[in-house]
């Protein structure tokens, strides 16, 4: 399906076959089990490290393959087909968002301490931005980092943090200068076990149930100065830079998931019989599938367009925001249409579509809501 988009080369397609084989053998068969348990095995991070999947765009000196973002795009798309949004999110957070700032803004020492073991899958990373009272409104974040002799003292809390409960380190957005808005923001790394850092609770969710989503609390948590990423006051720009790949990855994951959901719908309506024939033979069903395929293709095209711009080094903020909104909402529509095509069976736990339907719903919320995407898109009109 991917051939002919003028984007991926033969080596990307060869890598896709490898990822697909891993997904089909090592993830898909366990999607339901991990969903029921509410987590996937920690060993999967190490396995992905072994397979070289956690460092595709990072330098070789830290254990990466320095292969570029298109290979990671292939990985994200195929992970979208793993049948569990939670597994894709937990593994994805490791290489898309939590290690990104370390790679871009970390010193050599910080990369050796955090990035290298994260690439090997030995340490789990999380990105901590959202707070109970601020998320996309990053300038309004309240968690503080007060400068003291030799370090910072952190106070505040973070919530809805993917991998938050199991993370060995968290890359946090904090206010080093609470008197300033976005210019008072900085990024700092905190390790698990640092006194004053506690994990509040694992949050229960509608979907993405196999991923751990945590609430993190910091009370007079002292962190050494060497854990600061880049310079004080640069946090806002660091976060904004990181958002691009996060949003593109959500769009790519939605395209991958929708592709899989549509294939599942087609297979179901071909074997399900009603009124003496396969339901796929009814024109209303055929046309519904055609609409779904068209919806998917449009979103895929825009996502690939944004990816092409990103891969070419452009800061394509409008296109990326459009792709994130369109693709994640498309995935919800495809999941909903597929559930409807399944009829009563679609509402049953026995069938995977009910999980896909719940998992898809996070898309237009996480990594910046569709409404926030619209705010960004509207900026081009000077609004």
């Amino acid at each position: 399906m991917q051939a002919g988009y003028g984007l991926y080369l033969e080596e990307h397609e060869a890598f896709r076959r490898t990822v697909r084989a891993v997904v089909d053998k090592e993830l898909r068969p366990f999607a339901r089990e991990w969903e029921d348990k509410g987590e996937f095995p920690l060993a999967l991070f190490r396995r992905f490290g072994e397979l070289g999947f956690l460092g595709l765009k990072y330098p070789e000196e830290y254990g990466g393959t320095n292969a570029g973002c298109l290979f990671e795009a292939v990985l994200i798309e195929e992970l979208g087909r793993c049948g569990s949004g939670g597994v894709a999110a937990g593994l994805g957070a490791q290489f898309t968002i939590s290690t990104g700032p370390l790679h871009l803004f970390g010193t050599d020492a910080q990369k050796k301490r955090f990035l290298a073991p994260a690439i090997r899958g030995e340490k789990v990373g999380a990105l901590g931005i959202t707070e109970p009272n601020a998320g996309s409104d990053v300038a309004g974040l309240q968690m503080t980092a007060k400068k003291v002799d030799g370090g910072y003292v952190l106070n505040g809390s973070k919530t809805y943090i993917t991998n938050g409960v199991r993370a060995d380190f968290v890359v946090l957005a904090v206010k080093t200068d609470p008197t300033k808005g976005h210019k008072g923001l900085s990024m700092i790394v905190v390790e698990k076990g640092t006194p004053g850092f506690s994990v509040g609770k694992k949050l229960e969710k509608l979907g993405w149930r196999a991923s751990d989503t945590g609430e993190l609390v910091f009370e007079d948590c002292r962190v050494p100065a060497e854990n600061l990423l880049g310079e004080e006051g640069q946090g806002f720009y660091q976060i904004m830079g990181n958002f691009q790949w996060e949003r593109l990855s959500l769009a790519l994951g939605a395209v991958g998931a929708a592709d899989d959901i549509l294939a599942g719908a087609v297979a179901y309506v071909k074997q399900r019989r009603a009124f003496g024939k396969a339901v796929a033979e009814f024109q209303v069903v055929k046309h519904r599938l055609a609409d779904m395929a068209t919806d998917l293709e449009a979103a895929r095209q825009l996502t690939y367009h944004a990816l092409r711009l990103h891969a070419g080094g452009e800061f394509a903020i409008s296109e990326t925001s459009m792709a994130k909104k369109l693709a994640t909402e498309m995935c919800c529509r495809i999941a909903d249409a597929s559930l409807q095509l399944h009829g009563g069976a679609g509402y049953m736990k026995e069938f995977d579509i009910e999980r896909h339907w719940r998992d898809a719903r996070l898309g237009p919320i996480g990594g910046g809501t569709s409404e926030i995407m619209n705010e960004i898109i509207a900026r081009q009109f000077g609004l």
Partner: protein
Amino acid sequence: MKILVTAKRVEDPESKIKVKPDGTGIVLEGLKYKINPFDEIAVEEALRLVAKFPGEVVVASVGGKEVQEQLRHALAMGATRAVWVNHTGPLDQMGIAALLQKVAEKEKPDLVILGKQSIDDDQNQIGQYLAEWLGWAQATFASKVESFESDAEKNKVPALTVSADVKTVRVVREVDGGLATVECQLPAVVTADLRLNMPRYASLPGIMKAKSKPIEELTPVGLGVDVTPKLTVTKMMAPPARKAGIKVPDVATLVQKLKTEAKVL
């Protein structure tokens, strides 16, 4: 140690295979292809042996330009280089074996490992023809059987053991009713069964390295082989669709039906 392996291009088992209405073959539109899974197992075994006895793994395939995709896959897994016999058009198993014979005579490997059969035609003949024509020993259906009770027992008998002086190979074969162990003088031909190993994935560094590994192009004419098929397929048919079964209320009815309808009692 030098090992020659094969990489046949076959229809992906997940593709929907349909026989053409006129019975001359299968519908090729929309099919996906991959390396024959048994050949992939052969490549894996060769890579493991070469890790112990340094040398090279040469992978061969016969077909049009498209078989380079399967050769690249084997190269991405770690094979050293590839031999591509460029041929389009009809080919029977004797033609393939004759071409491989020439390749083996040219390459002079210590060992040839092939899949025991390919999952498209399921002929299970190439290894046997090849060994016979080369005049080499053969050990078909090399297998590691998972039904051993303990890991210790399982590990006691590796399926393929090459002697330290690389003169002989001992092969545990899967045969009807059990396992047979044979020892062959090298060079020999071994065919791989399903349980021999779990092939590795092609890693990204492997995929990138494979791009620059050489693929040597040969032709049947160049090898001096006449591949005119001696065997022709006259008609292909899909197996008859199975009828749905029925449920019976009790054992008595079952026995009754087995007697009167199935007539097996």
